[in-house]
């Protein structure tokens, strides 16, 4: 099965880490990329602008009920959970925080695993809490590709370590290997 969607979750050190990954995505990358990064609400508008300037793919804040478009990078808006509906549209929710976080990585990953199953790649990177661990396990359980940044290379290893504890069979790789790994999942 070819790659249908990518979900990425990260927290402390995440902006740096995403800067090593998202700008490497080629202009013809065929799958939508959904990102949850824990940042204080005031900074999150600038994140979309920051990556829009660096990336070859269009970058935007995810909007409720928006159909996912190929080759587009979506960031979760501040203070809302980001989910994917089975029909491939975006859903936002203001349900209570999960793992003290809203948006929460687990919420995105679990809904995306449900929607895309084996067509999904889930990536957990640097961070100082364990959000994303259960979500990555859900991605793996749905036969998706589970990827974790090598903890030793992460600015903060807690999040990738927690993901590996929950999902020991996830592939680990350095940040610069992630985009080539995603490209290898695309059936050309």
């Amino acid at each position, binding site marked *: 099965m070819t790659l249908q969607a990518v979900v990425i979750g990260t927290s402390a050190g995440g902006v740096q880490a995403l800067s090593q990954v998202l700008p490497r995505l080629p202009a013809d990358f065929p799958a939508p990329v959904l990102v949850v990064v824990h940042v204080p609400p005031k900074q999150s508008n600038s994140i979309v602008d920051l990556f829009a300037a660096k990336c070859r793919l269009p970058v935007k804040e995810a*909007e*409720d*009920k928006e159909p996912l478009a190929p080759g587009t990078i979506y960031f979760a*808006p501040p203070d*809302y959970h980001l*989910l*994917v*509906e*089975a029909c491939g549209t975006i*859903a*936002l*929710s*203001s*349900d*209570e925080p999960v793992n003290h976080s809203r948006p929460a990585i687990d*919420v995105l990953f*679990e*809904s995306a695993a*449900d*929607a*895309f*199953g084996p067509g999904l790649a889930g990536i957990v990177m640097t961070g100082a809490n364990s959000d994303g661990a259960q979500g990555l396990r859900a991605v793996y359980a749905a036969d998706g590709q589970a990827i974790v940044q090598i903890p030793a290379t992460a600015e903060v290893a807690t999040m990738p370590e927690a993901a590996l504890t929950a999902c020991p069979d996830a592939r680990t790789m350095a940040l610069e290997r992630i985009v080539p790994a995603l490209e290898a999942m695309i059936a050309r």
Partner: protein
Amino acid sequence: MSESIEDIEIQLLLDAVYRHYHYDFRHYARASIKRRLLQARSQWGYDSISDIQSAVLHDESILPKLLNFLTVQVSEMFRDPSYFRALREKVVPHLRTYPSLKVWVAGCSQGEELYSLAVLFAEEGLFERTIFYATDINPAALRAAQAGIYPLDRIQLFTENHRLSGGHSSLSDHYTADYDRAVFSKSLRERTVFSDHSLVTDAAFGEMHLISCRNVLIYFDRELQDRVVGLFGESLVRGGFLGIGSKESLRFSEHADMFAEFVREERIYRRSSQ
């Protein structure tokens, strides 16, 4: 992917709840409903969603608990202070021109938005001429809204939000602290009618000047959103105002032409005159 067994079970449960109890969640956004039902299943120790269905059909005391899982929202007073600031600075001057006012807080949950508006209307001198309607489908949430009691540890956030919204009284004038709770003043709700109303199945409310309904529409699918936006259009006076959540939009609604953007960035709309 083909429909999973869990998805089939969820559809059957929602059908059962509708057919037996007339609560209609069939057009709620499915991904969030699924999350909440899976939470309920694990908290209640059931093996499957079908077990919830069996329990709720045979034991009506389960229904209120299920409603709490499916509907209750913990919000904040003055959530998104800039929304309330826009109401205060841009909408209130228009509301002042009416001798009497009706305000509808649709999907009021535990009342945070209602008390925010009551405080704001009191500060702006509009309170005495206003009747507030606070509606929800969940009787337990309505009782909580009617009680107006919030954990004291949330008050710091509410106070900061209130200040950022341009509040010019002290929020502490409006509640009394009682151990670990803040009890909001009875006078704030003396002009409120609390009522059980479903946006899914019930009819329009007449002649409102302001409807505030924040972070409710995101839980509905497109079809249900359309119905509700039409309902709001029918419930507003010409020139009346509708405020929705900061990530909600009327853009895709088939009833969008009933409304004009009034404060675009705060998602405040005005009922057009045609």
